[in-house]
């Protein structure tokens, strides 16, 4: 029941995102129709092109036929998106879904590794800091965590490019893999792809784990002081079990909202991160679409990033409901 409700809600959210995208793209000055019309006029030269021809051209690119009423346009756009048809890229002159299918795995790989590492390192470090509260290790890590938390990931990325790629030449500066390699399941390609992914991932993780560690530390310090922990100690429950099952679990659960926010934040951040590393993922194409006025690719990239965030949040949601049974009885609250 809970699963069905969450999936239904995710679907509603996705339709809402499609609506927002539609509304935004409709309100861009000029709009896709004008853009395509101008292009056709330029390339067509003196040839007379009828309005209906341009309209059908606009429709084949963007799935929006400007001659129909607004609600029909919206309905047609929504149905074609839900069927997986995202239109045709004006700039690359390929179906948007092809470009996105080629780019999405890279972004998802980069960001899921980053998110897992950020939270893994942050949670472990925060728990250790809480147990060693007041020691030199705790104070030192707190300051370092706070400092790293105030460095934007793209500033870290630029510094890494400068120091590690350019000055030391240890890791590649840009791209998804070394040029001239055939993508495939061979060792050379995988090593190259991993080496290209290290710097983007490290930029996100280094600037992200500090915030997680500080939150985890605060939660764990609070949990350690609770009465049930004292009782557990008096009952003779082994310390390790208390640390992981009692303190750990209860300190991690409130960070669930942070986790969801972090997913959205990191996926959104892929726009600038992939630009710095010239990493051809979703964010890279989205930004290039915005810069070239490629509306279909712009909308498609935006929708797919939203979809990726949505799926990640859904997975987090369903996992959370398995770990924390209390989430079920939310509906029983009285309304005032």
């Amino acid at each position, binding site marked *: 029941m809970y699963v069905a409700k969450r999936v239904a809600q995710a679907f509603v959210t996705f339709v809402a995102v499609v609506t927002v995208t539609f509304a935004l793209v409709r309100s861009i*000055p000029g709009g896709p129709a004008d853009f395509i019309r101008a292009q056709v006029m330029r390339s067509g030269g003196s040839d007379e092109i009828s309005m209906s021809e341009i309209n059908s051209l606009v429709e084949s690119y963007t799935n929006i036929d400007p001659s129909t009423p607004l609600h029909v346009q919206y309905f047609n756009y929504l149905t074609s998106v839900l069927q997986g048809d995202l239109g045709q890229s004006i700039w690359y002159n390929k179906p948007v879904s092809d470009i996105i299918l080629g780019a999405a795995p890279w972004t998802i790989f980069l960001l899921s590794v980053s998110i897992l590492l950020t939270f893994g390192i942050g949670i472990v470090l925060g728990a250790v800091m809480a147990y060693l509260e007041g020691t030199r290790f705790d104070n030192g890590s707190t300051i370092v965590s706070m400092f790293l938390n105030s460095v934007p990931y793209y*500033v870290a990325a630029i510094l890494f490019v400068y120091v590690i790629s350019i000055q030391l030449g240890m890791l590649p500066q840009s791209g998804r893999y070394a040029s001239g390699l055939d993508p495939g399941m061979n060792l050379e390609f995988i090593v190259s792809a991993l080496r290209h992914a290290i710097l983007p991932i490290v930029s996100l993780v280094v600037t992200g784990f500090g915030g997680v560690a500080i939150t985890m530390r605060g939660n764990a310090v609070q949990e350690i*002081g609770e009465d049930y922990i004292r009782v557990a100690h008096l009952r003779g429950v082994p310390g390790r079990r208390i640390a992981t099952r009692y303190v750990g679990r209860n300190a991690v659960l*409130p960070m669930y909202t942070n986790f969801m926010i972090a997913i959205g934040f990191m996926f959104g951040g892929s726009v600038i991160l992939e630009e710095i590393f010239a990493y051809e993922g979703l964010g890279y194409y989205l930004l290039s679409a915005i810069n070239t006025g490629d509306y279909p690719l712009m909308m498609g990239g935006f929708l797919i990033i939203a979809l990726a965030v949505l799926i990640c949040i859904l997975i987090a949601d369903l996992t959370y409901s398995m770990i924390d049974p209390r989430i079920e009885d939310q509906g029983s609250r009285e309304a005032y």
Partner: protein
Amino acid sequence: MAEQNSSFSQSDGAAGGQGASQADIYREWIDMAVLTPIRVAWDDWRTQVGSIIIAFYLLMGTVGVTLVDPPTQGQGDRYVPPFQDWSVPLGTNNLGESLLSSTVHATPPMLQMIAAGAVFSTVLATAIGTVSGYKGGAVDRILTVFTDIAMTIPGLPLIILLTAVFEPTNPAVIGIIITINAWAGLARSIRSQVLSLRDHSYVEASRIMGAPTRRILVDDIIPNIMPYVLINFVNSARNVIFGSVALFYLGLLGSTHENWGIALNNAYNDGAIYSLDVLHWLLIPMFAIVGLSFGFVLFAQGTEKLFNPRIRARHAETVEDDTAPYQE
């Protein structure tokens, strides 16, 4: 805590004389709501350092801009390293612009963006979070779905689309666009805080007495989550810095006004990363960005123990430390 108690007894004494005047109530409120938290927070070195850093940037944005000339081409030779020529103390870039000038003159719009964005996101989050958490039922469900939608839409791409649509130039408008969906996460966490408050006995009492929802929220609920809201106000300030510098770095806002992101972008694309000699061109905007956000992070962390009594107690020397984990 001691200070809070003493403020109570003082005002009680004054009230006992001839009934509390409006001024007394006001003074007591100031002491309780403003001075005591400041005293507690000021005990922490992080608050002190954070406040000093923020005050420094405020001075730079107000007094600094009158002392330092606006950046123009040819203020000095090209690529002057910092601390060499005292007419351009922080050196110059490829056009001979003084980096001190461009850093200082980027501060006022940055502060405006921070103020607008932080106020917008915090007020919206508090309103939606408290109403949703307190009311429950259908109102809660609708607001939660609305919040979830806002949280799911990827922030930076949405902001980029919005800047493409509206082409904002006013720093305050840019600040609001940057936090256009940043309120959602805060609203969700405020909602879960309110969930634990809504059935407290004093809230129950107000409800039975027939107080309207608006009064209960303003008088009973919001004061309790105020410290939490304040900390998140500071955190969203940091996010506005990150977001605005990102937009300017990507060149999506043009150069309507000075920004550290523009300097960063110019330095990165015009070769500062390939040469050690002009590294200052890249580092100075970085220091400016990280410095201000570090100030905000320190301030937020220093004030955090205001609302975590256990952390406060454990740091107080007068409280017996019986909360430490038992060692094996």
